[in-house]
């Protein structure tokens, strides 16, 4: 079973991740592991790199354990946070490039204007809602998104693989994301 009813399953994943962060709860971590480990392994095996998907999955889950205290539920669902750790390890392993990221503690960082409470209510934290929105995308848009997220393909690589002009790939990504934002309600549209 993959679809989450109204984000309930993910809500419990978020609770479990918070428990690991709070008190290094090993039972909570095992439940997270049983759910995410096979998914992360499937994600890693799609990148096409030479590193072992099993090894990258284990690195990801060890990082989840170590960093759990830094997880902030107001910034997103557990699956979003775990995805970002897996993604960064995959970039490291497959592309040997750095992934530049902003630092919220940097003096030059421009902070959010909205109070944290509003952010905490953001609808994109509801993983079930995001999943349902994904299912409603037209096939050609969903294909382009999946090739980006799962196969680590640049826009030009996707254009070459699908035999499409680069501009078409960009516009499908924009249309897909526009529709997702409207459905998810991450911002007024």
């Amino acid at each position: 079973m993959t679809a989450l009813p109204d984000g309930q399953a993910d809500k419990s994943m978020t609770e479990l991740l918070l428990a690991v962060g709070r008190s290094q709860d090993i039972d909570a971590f095992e439940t997270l592991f049983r759910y995410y480990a096979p998914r992360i392994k499937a994600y890693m095996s799609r990148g096409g790199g030479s590193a072992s998907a099993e090894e990258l999955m284990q690195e990801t889950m060890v990082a989840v354990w170590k960093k759990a205290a830094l997880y902030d539920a107001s910034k997103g669902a557990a699956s979003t946070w775990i995805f970002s750790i897996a993604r960064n390890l995959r970039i490291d392993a497959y592309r040997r490039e750095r992934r530049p990221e902003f630092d919220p503690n940097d003096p030059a960082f421009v902070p959010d204007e909205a109070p944290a409470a509003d952010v905490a209510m953001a609808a994109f934290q509801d993983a079930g809602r995001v999943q349902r929105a994904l299912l409603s995308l037209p096939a050609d848009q969903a294909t382009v998104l999946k090739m980006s997220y799962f196969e680590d393909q640049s826009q030009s690589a996707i254009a070459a693989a699908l035999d499409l002009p680069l501009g078409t790939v960009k516009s499908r990504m924009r249309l897909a994301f526009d529709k997702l934002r409207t459905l998810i309600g991450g911002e007024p549209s």
Partner: protein
Amino acid sequence: MSVIHHLNDDLLVSYAAGALSEGWSIAVATHLALCPDCRRRAAVADAVGGAMLDDLDAAPSEDRSWQAVRARLTSGSEPEKSHPVASPQTLPQPLRDYVGGDLNGVRWQALGKGASQLRIKTADRATQVRLLRIPAGKPVPEHTHGGRELTLVLTGSFRDGDTIFARGDIEDADASLTHQPIATPEADCICLAVTDAPLRFSSWIVRLVQPILGI
């Protein structure tokens, strides 16, 4: 003053997906440091990644894997890294790391007509990343590019046609756009510019005429 010119969605989605190469990602991440609006959209793009991870068909986990990971867990969480940084800083992270410090330490290389640049090294060979310093009121020099170009303003501002770009604003130009950015008269303008790496021709004659033909 808040940012007016934002990141296009295709860049945000590619960056969140982990499919954007390092050169373009520097411009995206630096813009995100300056733009709460785009950070909200980036959070949605990350959530799409989370939902896709949830959606992957997965075999049941193997006990062997769990035992292996369990053996690697240590107690005591990783301390949050904090490096106290003197404020204020003009260049936001992650750009400061790439430049090796803030603007006052930059060793500019002259480009002619008062403009100068600093080339930024990355592991990404498909892009060219640099800081440009354009004197007040002067145009951006040697302005031909074959593909996409992202220009992010860090200090001062520039005008392109009727549009003004100031700190945090990003201009996303493709090859079909003929444009001529000019620094506004009040102050020098410093930008981060990321372009597709220029084509390298083996013949010195072609290299010689390349700037003239604009290829």
